[in-house]
């Protein structure tokens, strides 16, 4: 089942083109890795899929992007789109609230008010993000007291708490130590059964470890996409080969 599908998607910021003719699909319960040097349009793609780019005047989109066969720009309400397509940002960005309230922020937005339902959601989300055991006794503490790796898992839990169908990760481990990175990768693998996930990463090896398929982006273009093992062992395009083997980027 195709979950997300883009066809001939172009994105501009003012007069600069950030994504060129991206045609790509992501299947349900798949982890798609997106690799490529910085400024290759990876982050822009994620922020187009939940329409966060539209917060900035000057961004413009052409072409199509679909979620479950519905055009996200015309056929899906922007708020429910963002609820269904969650994102985890590059830096851990807890809100200045307690751990509990960080996770409950999203569910509360969507009308869940009862304390025991919120508690259930918080517990489940934290467990899914592999953070529960570390914070279950300190839910009322400020989220800023957590370590960087814990904060990032908190952000994953916060994203999961609104029960999205798709989770986008924008270089989620860029500032983290190897052990925290490992924990996040394990969490992603566990989440496969329930979510479609797209992982943008600067770390070539991370995509190899986690993703089912990998796409390689360069300067706003999709160079190639395929089964991860094939991309890493027998890339069709020389530029992919160069990037993976570390000759540039």
């Amino acid at each position, binding site marked *: 089942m195709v979950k997300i599908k883009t066809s001939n998607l172009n994105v501009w910021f003012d007069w600069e083109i950030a994504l060129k003719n991206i045609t790509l699909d992501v299947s349900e319960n798949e982890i798609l890795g997106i690799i490529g040097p910085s400024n290759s349009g990876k982050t822009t793609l994620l922020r187009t899929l939940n329409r966060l780019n539209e917060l900035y005047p000057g961004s413009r989109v052409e072409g199509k992007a679909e979620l479950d066969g519905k055009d996200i720009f*015309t056929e899906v*309400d922007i*708020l429910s789109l963002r609820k269904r397509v969650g994102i985890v940002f590059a830096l851990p960005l807890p809100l200045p609230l307690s751990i509990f309230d960080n996770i409950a922020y999203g569910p509360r937005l969507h009308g869940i008010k009862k304390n025991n339902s919120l508690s259930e959601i918080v517990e489940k989300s934290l467990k899914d993000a592999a953070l529960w055991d570390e914070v279950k006794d300190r839910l009322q503490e400020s989220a800023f007291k957590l370590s960087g790796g814990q904060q990032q898992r908190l952000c994953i839990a916060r994203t999961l708490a609104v029960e999205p169908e798709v989770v986008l990760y924008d270089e989620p481990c860029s500032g983290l130590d190897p052990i925290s990175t490992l924990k996040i990768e394990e969490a992603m693998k566990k989440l496969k059964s329930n979510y479609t996930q797209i992982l943008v990463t600067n770390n070539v090896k991370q995509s190899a470890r986690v993703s089912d398929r990998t796409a390689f982006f360069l300067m706003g273009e999709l160079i190639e996409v395929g089964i991860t093992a094939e991309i890493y062992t027998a890339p069709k395009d020389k530029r992919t080969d160069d990037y993976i083997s570390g000759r540039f980027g």
Partner: protein
Amino acid sequence: MKKKYVSGVEFFIEKAIFASGAATILFVVLIFVFLLKEGLSLFSEVSLTSFLFSKNWYPISDPPQFGILPLIMGSILVTFGAIVISVPLGVAAAVYISEVAPKSIRTFLKSGIELLAAIPSIVLGFIGIIFLAPAIRNIFNLSSGLTALAGSIMLAFMALPTIVSIIEDAIVSVPRSYKEGSLALGATHWQTIYKVILPAASSGILAAIMLGIGRVIGETMAVLMITGNAAIMPTSILQPVRTLTATIAAEMGEAVAGSSHYYALFAIGIILFIISFVINLLADMFLHRGKK
């Protein structure tokens, strides 16, 4: 797609937000309209040129004469004096506070200046009558110390907090690299200040001067109390004068609504509105130029 609201509260609050934004424009328009509504009636009796350029302000003589030139000159004289006093002091203080003063003294000085900004102008006017005016009378051997000079000194103090804080902002936002570059070439800190930092902060200083002028020209009560209130063409800074603002404050109480005197005071309001509009636009322009 049509915008969906999450709740009724949200619908109303968003309408209120837009309305409040629009209200600011409405207020400016209303102010101008009501000044015009009352003020323009004057010009059926008095021509604009004689209003602006005649030297006689005798609003209650018969026939009344409405020439505001002495009032304009009074405002200009007092403002000019205040700016001459406050700008050098303000630049010096801003430089001292932002570049020279040790941190502990800096906090102290800054609070002092904030305190000055907090004192109501009526209080400064009161102190001015009791201490400043007699001092001026004694120093210059005058029959009264209530003069343009007293007004200028008083107004300089009122404008200083504005002037200092804007210049300080301008100095602080000069890129560090300018300063370091200059110091690296062997310039002293002082040379760096007047050759590099002050020129780089010049548009902020201009903005400060403009806003200072705006503050001074619009000040009413303290000026009314301390400048002696004589609506005559000033010839010296040691004479009593009457400003545009003080005239409105002093005479509106006696002017009969609907009389030409009443209209004339609103017409002065129009002049003040236009002056402040121009000054603030200029200041804003300088500030934006500084930011780029």
